[in-house]
């Protein structure tokens, strides 16, 4: 047998490639500014970034799981559990925030660890495993709140999602959630693209058998990926608790939005390729699409339809390009 994949289109590969998600984002932003010039003002784009922050953080976590070859569908109900749990635990006591937030972050990591362990040790495919955790966590949120969550979180807790830092030069103000966004996405991007963890996540998603035979601690890496996704869910929950308030469906649907954002950013389903900055681009693009739909006066459900179409189209396009380049 001769090797058939020797050196195809070397030339094309050498051209500097710009991820199409940035082009898409630029076009969408231009469209929004055209329809609403106020968007170019700090109030306009800062509010946009503030709204996009939870999704962008989730997408940054999701990209780890997707690059490792799996899916994490549990983050939506994890958000709900974080919001409901925080409102139960703080119980209107502003000083409780200081231990509740670390506890919620730990819970996110814990949920991720459980997801990872189910996949690694029970060998349940991540899609089924995290769908199972999704149901379970939703049930837990109901159980915890008795079905009727208290509609309150102390202002200290809501600080991260709601507050603005004023009198900032150039941009006048920065929402705290945008600072959280920059810090978290920056950290996730560093871990993914500048450390061994990132390379190992790519390797186990690309070819788990080869990775294991090369000595990669496959389970440890996979569980880490799920834990980062869980952490991103907890952070997103803390932000959402800040600006959306308490209900048992705050997180509903976020898992699919996060996957859509990651896929828009070019993350390869079933593993091997993924980028945190591009997932951020995907999250911003998706939020921009939703913003545009709002401006166009389209009803809320249309959002879902559009998201479904984008998800399928993005994957279909990626498959088409892979076939064309023979990879």
């Amino acid at each position: 047998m001769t090797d058939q994949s020797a050196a195809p289109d070397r030339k094309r590969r050498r051209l500097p490639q710009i991820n199409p998600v940035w082009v898409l984002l630029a076009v969408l932003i231009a469209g929004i500014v055209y329809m609403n010039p106020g968007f170019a003002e700090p109030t306009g784009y800062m509010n946009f970034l503030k709204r996009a922050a939870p999704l962008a953080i989730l997408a940054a976590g999701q990209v780890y799981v997707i690059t490792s070859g799996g899916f994490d569908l549990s983050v939506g109900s994890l958000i709900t559990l974080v919001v409901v749990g925080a409102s139960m635990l703080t119980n209107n006591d502003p000083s409780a925030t200081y231990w509740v937030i670390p506890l919620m972050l730990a819970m996110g990591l814990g949920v991720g660890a459980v997801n990872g362990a189910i996949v690694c040790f029970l060998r349940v495919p991540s899609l089924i495993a995290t769908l199972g955790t999704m149901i379970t966590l939703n049930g837990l949120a109901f159980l915890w709140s008795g079905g009727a969550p208290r509609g309150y979180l102390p202002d200290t807790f809501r600080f991260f999602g709601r507050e603005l830092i004023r009198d900032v030069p150039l941009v006048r103000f920065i929402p705290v959630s945008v600072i959280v966004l920059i810090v978290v996405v920056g950290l996730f991007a560093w871990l993914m693209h500048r450390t061994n963890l990132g390379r190992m996540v790519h390797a186990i998603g690309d070819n788990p058998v080869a990775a294991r035979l090369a000595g990669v601690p496959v389970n440890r890496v996979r569980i880490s990926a799920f834990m980062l996704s869980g952490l991103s869910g907890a952070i997103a929950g803390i932000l959402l608790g800040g600006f959306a308030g308490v209900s048992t469906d705050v997180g509903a649907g976020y898992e699919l939005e996060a996957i859509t954002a990651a896929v828009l950013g070019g993350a390869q389903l079933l593993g091997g390729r993924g980028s945190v900055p591009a997932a951020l681009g995907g999250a911003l693009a998706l939020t921009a699409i939703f913003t545009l739909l709002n401006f166009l006066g389209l009803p809320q459900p249309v959002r879902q339809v559009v998201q479904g179409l984008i998800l399928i189209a993005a994957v279909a396009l990626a498959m088409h390009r892979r076939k064309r380049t023979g990879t």
Partner: protein
Amino acid sequence: MSAADTPAPTRAGFRFERWAPLILLAGAFAIYVIVAVATDQTQYLTLENLIAILARSIALGITAIGQTFVILVASIDLSVASLISATAVLASVVMDGSPAMILPAILAALLLGGLVGLANGLVVSGLKVNPLIATLGMSLIIQGCLSAFVSNFAGSVPPAFQVFAYGEIGMVPVALIFLALLAVTAWGVLRFTKFGSDIYAVGGNEEAARFAGIKTGRIVVASHVICSVCASIAGLYLASRLRSGAPWIGADGVYDLESIAVVVIGGTVLAGGRGGVWGTMAGMLIFSLIDSVFNIAGVDSFAKQVLRGIIIVAAVAFYAIRSKRIVA
């Protein structure tokens, strides 16, 4: 891996997997009996009650039969829950209390199911989109369209159509007889037709199937159509039982995940090519027995949801843990 040079292992696993659904079923039944006796509620052990237990999982059973087809061809369908809601609402709105509209409503619901299945199948086999993503996307699209039109119970089902859910022949519910007939038909198709044989071939080894001249794409599309049509029948049944359709009934029943879990517990492998309808029926029985155990034991409905998630994962793990493959 490296199987080519490893001496053939013994085939002991074969037998186990064949009988596993029955063993599980016997176990679930034993737990049911034990709990009923232990809580001194032996009235639950009558034949009527057992039939009632069955009747509660009819929608799940119908959906799972369809899901069996797509899983056998190594695909999957996560859009069934949304489709169930959509067809239930569609049927109930079209009927709107009028017996004359029963037939058009049924046809409309089946047509919707057929179109959704066709779209799913074409996206999966034609555009090569991962079936999980394709059907999740489809689920969003259906749910979005549905909520754009209705937000509560819509339309109503005339009494004549409620017979589907409430009618009885002797002491056996009509719907149960329907489910049994559907299962027998599905079994016959898988067992005795060329189409059935092709399904196993495509799921077992797509390349071998293609080399044998089987049009694999068509088989995948056809399986998706069957799955979606089954889901729309489940939607019709639920509309009949609730006497109206609402946009949340599919999601409420978690029919997407539960139908997959039922199929897997029944011994059909997610990788395709092995399994069948009778296993799925055993899986459905196991689920309804577990549900009944919760009822007898008086488990709170939220706690039930928590346990349900755990049981689904445990059920899949029961089969998966024996494989040595690395999964993601």
